[in-house]
């Protein structure tokens, strides 16, 4: 049987303590978006060395060696394994998508793909995602991070009506 999810306030205390430990050990916080930018750069350079002419891609290779030889890349591998282990132990490990029950799967996958593209593009401007910029920056009192967070949640609220059917099963109007 599936276990219940943790109480959010309890989860926050656990996550916050881990975020403190990560800063205390590694001098930096959690992140993820950089891993995918680095992996893309590495794939491109493996296929054709001339991609190194791109200044952004080249910045990942300044230290010599692989673009993937990076703290966040190793940490991202851990996130994948941790998500797997927790789902397995909680009886939640199963291959399925998340959406409102009647929403078409093809449209769900299209929005996931396009949304992923927009998110990773945005993280290059934002120097990180809701972890690497959001959590880490709020904990270190960064002013820019608060600008980022209000933009993210403000925009998500403003655009949310466009995607309501994907997430919320509204009751049919009674005749």
């Amino acid at each position, binding site marked *: 049987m599936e276990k219940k999810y943790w109480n*959010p306030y309890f989860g926050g205390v656990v996550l916050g303590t881990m975020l403190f430990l990560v800063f205390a050990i590694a*001098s930096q916080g959690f992140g993820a978006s950089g891993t995918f930018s680095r992996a893309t750069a590495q794939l491109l350079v493996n296929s054709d060395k001339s*991609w190194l002419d791109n200044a952004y891609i080249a910045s990942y290779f300044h230290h010599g060696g692989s673009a993937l030889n990076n*703290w966040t890349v190793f940490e991202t591998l851990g996130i994948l394994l941790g998500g797997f282990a927790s789902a397995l132990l909680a009886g939640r490990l199963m291959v399925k998508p998340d*959406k409102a029950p009647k929403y078409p799967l093809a449209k769900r996958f299209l929005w996931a793909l396009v949304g992923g593209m*927009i998110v990773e593009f945005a993280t290059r*401007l934002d120097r990180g995602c809701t972890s690497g910029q959001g959590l880490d920056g709020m904990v270190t009192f960064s002013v820019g991070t608060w600008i980022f967070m209000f933009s993210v949640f403000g925009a998500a609220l403003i655009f*949310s009506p466009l995607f309501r059917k994907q997430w919320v099963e509204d009751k049919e109007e009674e005749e």
Partner: protein
Amino acid sequence: MDFILPLYKNALISPEANLFFAVVMGFAFGFVLERTGFTRSLHIAETFYFKNLAVPKIMGVTVITATTWLIIFSWLGWIDLGALFTPKTYIWPYVVGGILFGLGMVMSGYCPGTAVAGLGSGKSDALVFLLGLFGGAFLYFMLYPMVKDFASSGNLGVLKLQDLFGGNEYTSYILTVILETGIISFLVLLQKLTNKGEK
């Protein structure tokens, strides 16, 4: 004064050990993301319809908890807060990038970290989202010559709350706790007002 923490910046652990801890701490992060329901795109998206406020509650309490530990350890003289990586402030890129990120997040229901843990727990939409991330990075590389001036505009360097409002790190700490508590309380109030009669 000699600080002990952070270990890596003070060269008390080797780069190899630091990468080992990266996997261990990543594992713990992914584990807790799954335990708290962050691997569910539905849970993340429901935030914006005031159906489920777990995401802002967890984020707010996470920040309050982490920053409380840091301020206590700093007060005891055990950690050098100045050695912690702090993102620089780029005003306009963060405003535009934040708006794009918010659009992509409500569209997909994921952000990069939660989708990685989501893939681990078997979510097929998380896999599709992660494929999209490669596409987004590729798009940015291609457009980089055009966007690079904008990407570095409004650069204020490392700017902390105490630089803006005066005082010291304790001022920033108190401001952060007030902001996070205020945001959670405000959202809970809004949820009560918008979902009358619903769960």
